[in-house]
């Protein structure tokens, strides 16, 4: 079973202020549980592939500093040893498995931070984002 969620905001053309940083391989971990990460600048990994869900996804329609959820995952996902079947989506660029998760306004915590603005999270790009902007 596949569940897809789609957030889309219609906006104007973007004027980018910053330029690309250097591209070097990066790996990290393991953390205290054993998670590791690697990124796509490492040579021996599959290439980047964006998955287009612009037609198949469902729009959440989040506004500034909001959390949507619970949203069913469609299967059991194990995260740090716990099984979850639903997530909460913050407009500030992360998802949490905690019910009642904070929205994380207005900047990302260092990770890990016990008792931070939000815990039990996957922070893709945690910052002061505003989908309604």
């Amino acid at each position: 079973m596949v569940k897809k969620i789609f957030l889309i905001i219609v906006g104007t053309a973007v004027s980018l202020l910053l330029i690309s940083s250097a591209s070097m391989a990066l790996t990290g971990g393991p953390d205290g549980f054993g998670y590791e990460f690697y990124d796509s600048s490492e040579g021996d990994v599959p290439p980047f592939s964006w998955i287009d869900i612009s037609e198949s996804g469902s729009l959440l329609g989040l506004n500034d500093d909001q959390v949507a959820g619970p949203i069913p995952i469609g299967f059991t996902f194990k995260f740090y040893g716990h099984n979850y079947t639903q997530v909460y989506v913050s407009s500030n660029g992360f998802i949490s498995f905690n019910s009642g998760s904070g929205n994380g306004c207005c900047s990302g915590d260092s990770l890990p931070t016990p008792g931070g603005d939000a815990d039990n999270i996957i922070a893709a790009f945690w910052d002061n984002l505003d989908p309604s902007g």
Partner: protein
Amino acid sequence: MFIVEFSNIPFSAIGSIKNYFQIILYEGSNHILVNYLDVTSRGSGNTTAGIENLNGTTGLQYSRMDTPGRYTNRYVRYVPPSENGTRALYFPHVDSGGNTWETEIGVINKSEQELNGIFKAYNDNGESVSSNIAVTLPPKGRREITIGNEFMNPGDIGYIIFESDSESLAGYTKFYQEGVYRAAIPAVKVVNASDIYISHIDSIAYWWTGISLVNTTSAAKELTITFNDGRSVAYTLNANEHKAFTIDSLFNDQPQPDIKSAVITNASGIIGLEIFGSAGSDNQLDGLLLTDNTASTIYYPHVASDALWWTGIVAYNPSDSACTITITPYSAQGTPLLVSTLPLAGKGKYIGLVSNLGLPAQTAWFKIDSTRPLTGFELFSTVDGDQLAAYAEKSGAGAKEGVFAKIEKSGWTGIAFVNIENAPADVTMTAYNDTGSVIATQTLNISSYEKVVGMAPYLFSQDISAATYIGYSSDKNLVGFQINASSDNMMLDALPGM
């Protein structure tokens, strides 16, 4: 899989900058992939990327985002530990213990640290069979096992998992009929997390195609195999089950000449391979891993078309939408030759013998760039129909280090690789024995887009007869593979640099 996408999202105070990224959760493997199509980090103290546990007591921070800047077309993958804290390397098909087939597996420790691991054998139902084999590999060490010689009850084994304390390793499986044919497949480090592409199927009178699949998850998987002609087959793999079948067996054992490719959906947690074999009196056989990998550039790093050899190639567009492919051939010295551009339909293939593709006569290798992601591979065969080798590059981007995993002792090993970057490459090749001792080293300076090809011993100025495999490192990305042949010129196989 489950996807949360953030599209066209501005900062609260900087509305002109928009960010595009997505979080993907994978069933079975529990991997987390974060795709960054286009984001602009404000840096440490503002932008954070990473994961954190229930109470915030442990986690990982993806430090790339700590540096302000724009990041495009990249991803970070968060990988959980296996249930017992070890890393798994899969050998997804074993055939041993009968009178005809035998299987050899090999593991190479690519790191400078000692590696400890255990080979565990499973039957087709995913039940543990035979006895485990514990292995300690010294730095750069290698272990090769013939299943029928070292495992109890080899005939019961369907697949093998090597559990170890290291991520820095590579492996392979070779299954063969002595004096007839042999197939070689890289061991699987990364379990498929989405749809699997079967780039090529031949189910006709002369060729047969076999599929072998393993469900690495602890739940049954309901797969759908959808073929290029629109037909589909539902296929169930129980938890940890291994199954092998031929394409024609899905259709009352009748050849299916209209079937040329397929996509396996709901395949998260599934690994496998496909085998091409010839029927009749010929003895061609080799295989490819089945993966969810696609790439916008496919490399074909060697072409052999002469009185003894033919080379066939496939580039497959798994999308429903058409794309445009650009074929760039190069001479052996790296000179770009006449470029051609072609349309490729959705689910279409660019396929043929290299000798019939109209490439310039000086073509030593070529690449195909595409406006949509492709899969692809090469086949090398002798014209006498006795030998076949299949090769597919795994990343679409080459690598700066790797191993050619086995030097043939009673036959020959040929190696071909190209520098895929537009600058000279400094390459160091090192020949090792199984204990990790250096037998010989050789440095090479390779021009941009130049190809190196030769028999393994002749790539070194020193004697490498005591070596069992070759490692390489480079300051530029390389794409290449090895071909191994038996001394009777019957068993042939290919493996990519790993």
